[in-house]
């Protein structure tokens, strides 16, 4: 018997995919979202986003570095994880992770290197001793800073970022596909799942960059670029509207069709997930930010910079929460009901210090932020105020 007296299959008593599997799509979503945001500048030449062009890439790398830990902490045999690379099942969505991850990491590193190449050479030439050796290593033996070389850099960067967009879409679309491909689970099994995951990934990526940009500049006592923030708010507003529309459309379709699966999904959303779905994912996490960002986008001429920045910051925080709630509601929600479709499993609360507990989840979220701080000590994540437009290899105007 389940919690509500419904019938559970005897093997269906516990939630198998726990907090780390919630963190996995959340963290990879931040990777893909931040990357796509950076591409708006590097590929689509949205010059107003220049101040966050580098930050978005480095944030993407930071979260990408720690994304595999979510899976490793979940696996029953993490020491065998190499099997996914050595003997992958080519018909399994999950087996593609290693390849997509490795490819994406290569691409991201190459792009970050190209973006920072001029800085690396400058720093190598200005420093001495071990520091100098370090920067020389980072330069990979290439010290050409001529205008021609910058042009080549920019061309390569454009190609890499261009490849990176479908790459990012694929990286996160496939995470959605992992769930969407489970036909045994009516809450997961929808062709919309990859698109919903991708849209919410972009939302979380932009929201994270807004937060990092706001805090980063606050600590370095610099002024937030108003056109940049305004543009970020506009993009974020658009993607959150698309994201929430898709999420609601899927549920409306399920409810309207009222097929067999709605008998279990209806009570799941209205009762079991009432707080995290209706309360967080829909109202606090989506409706409130939509209003806040709507104010920023539609009433921009009446806003002071401080009000705009505050509204964007609060909306971004809420949207990070919304996307986390969405991942929770998909991953945990999809397991709360038994495959008998007649009952709900025992309530799941993650432990604090478990292998898949809250402490490690927080660590996986915080470590990329520390990485960004560390990276900023080595190479500037924010462009220096005195830098001319022409010094950035990623400048579209070149």
């Amino acid at each position, binding site marked *: 018997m389940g919690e509500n007296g419904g019938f559970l299959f*005897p093997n269906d008593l516990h939630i198998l995919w726990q907090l780390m599997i919630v963190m996995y799509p959340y963290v990879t979503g931040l990777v893909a979202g931040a990357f796509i945001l950076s591409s708006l500048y590097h590929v689509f030449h949205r010059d107003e986003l220049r101040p966050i062009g580098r930050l978005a890439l480095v944030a993407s790398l930071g979260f990408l570095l720690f994304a595999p830990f979510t899976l490793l902490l*979940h*696996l*029953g045999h993490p020491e065998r*994880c190499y099997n996914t690379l050595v*003997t992958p099942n080519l018909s399994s969505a999950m087996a593609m992770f290693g390849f997509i991850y490795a490819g994406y990491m290569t691409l991201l590193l190459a792009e970050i290197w190209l973006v920072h190449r001029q800085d690396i050479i400058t720093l190598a030439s200005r420093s001495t001793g071990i520091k100098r050796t370090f920067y020389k290593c980072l330069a990979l033996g290439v010290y050409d*800073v001529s205008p021609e070389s910058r042009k080549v850099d920019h061309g390569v960067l454009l190609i890499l970022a261009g490849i990176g967009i479908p790459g990012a879409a694929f990286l996160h679309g496939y995470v959605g596909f992992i769930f969407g491909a489970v*036909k045994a689970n009516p809450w997961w099994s929808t062709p919309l799942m990859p698109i919903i995951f991708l849209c919410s990934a972009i939302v979380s990526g932009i929201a994270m960059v807004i937060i990092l940009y706001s805090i980063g500049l606050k600590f370095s006592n610099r002024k937030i670029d108003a056109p940049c923030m305004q543009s970020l708010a506009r993009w974020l507003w658009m993607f959150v509207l698309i994201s929430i529309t898709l999420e609601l459309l899927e549920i409306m379709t399920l409810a309207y069709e009222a097929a067999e699966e709605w008998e279990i999904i209806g009570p799941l959303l209205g009762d079991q997930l009432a707080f995290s779905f209706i309360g967080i994912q829909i109202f606090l996490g989506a409706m409130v930010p939509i209003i806040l960002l709507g104010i920023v986008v539609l009433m921009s001429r009446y806003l002071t910079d401080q009000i705009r920045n505050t509204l964007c910051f609060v909306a971004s925080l809420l949207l990070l929460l919304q996307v986390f709630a969405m991942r929770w509601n998909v991953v945990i929600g999809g397991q709360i009901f038994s495959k008998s479709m007649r009952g709900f499993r025992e309530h799941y609360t993650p432990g604090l210090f478990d292998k898949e507990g809250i402490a490690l989840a927080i660590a996986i979220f915080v470590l990329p932020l520390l990485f960004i701080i560390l990276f900023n000590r080595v190479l500037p994540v924010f462009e220096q105020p005195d830098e001319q437009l022409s010094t950035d290899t990623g400048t579209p105007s070149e």
Partner: protein
Amino acid sequence: MPTIPVSNSECGGGCGGAPSAGTRRDFLKQGAKALGASVATIILCDMTDLTKMAEASGATPQRANLFADGYDWTKHSYVYLVDIRKCIGCGSCVRACSRENNVPPAHFRTWVERYRVSRSGEAVIDSTNGGMDGFEPSQTGLDITKAFFFPKLCCHCTHTPCVQLCPVCASYRTVDGVVLVDETRCIGCGYCVQACPYGSRFIHPETHTASKCTLCYHRITKGMTTACVQACPVEARMLGDMKQVGDKVAEIIATQRVLILQPELLTDPNCYYLGLTKEAR
């Protein structure tokens, strides 16, 4: 092509110098070659492994210690039949399976459900401890018009999602139609558990790998039947072989009104049911 040496005098402050795009181009070329070689190596390793697996599943089957010498898995195609009308819910099958396969407590490779259906179509279903201890009589408060016991196990589907989704080929289907798990390869991700529509898989609490009904492969490949079939006192469970001429189960499947679970998923189960009703799923 000349390059700019990194020295304060020549490159301070990001100064210009002689172009040396060739150096970078060379670097990119070498990088691309290295990447290509790595990918090719991985694909080759993968193909080598797949070739080995193909050999293992061919006419000369010898997957490491899977069965005794002399057994030819190309000459068998196992099917399972449950006659719901005969089951008395004694739980002997669940106990036999548990002992035979050392199934951990509170986990089940096979189990029995009790259905009690009222005149209005409301179903009260239970399977306390997987039906291992039988079923205590109890009142439902409903006008029960139909009741039956419903034994379940892995359906050993031909197009099984658990094998399709396993990221490391740890789940596989033998030539004679049994879905198994290679515990030495399983990474314990649980994807197959999520993928099984019938709830017949679980993660073993001690080995941390996927576990499921093996159709007592260690027995049937020696000419014996499964523990659950042997333990059933009323012949509600039967193991058949579609490749054996005159096989009783094959004959029933061919001639009687057998049903499968969740046919809409097109997993093509090899576990058939006699006496299945609309409430049961």
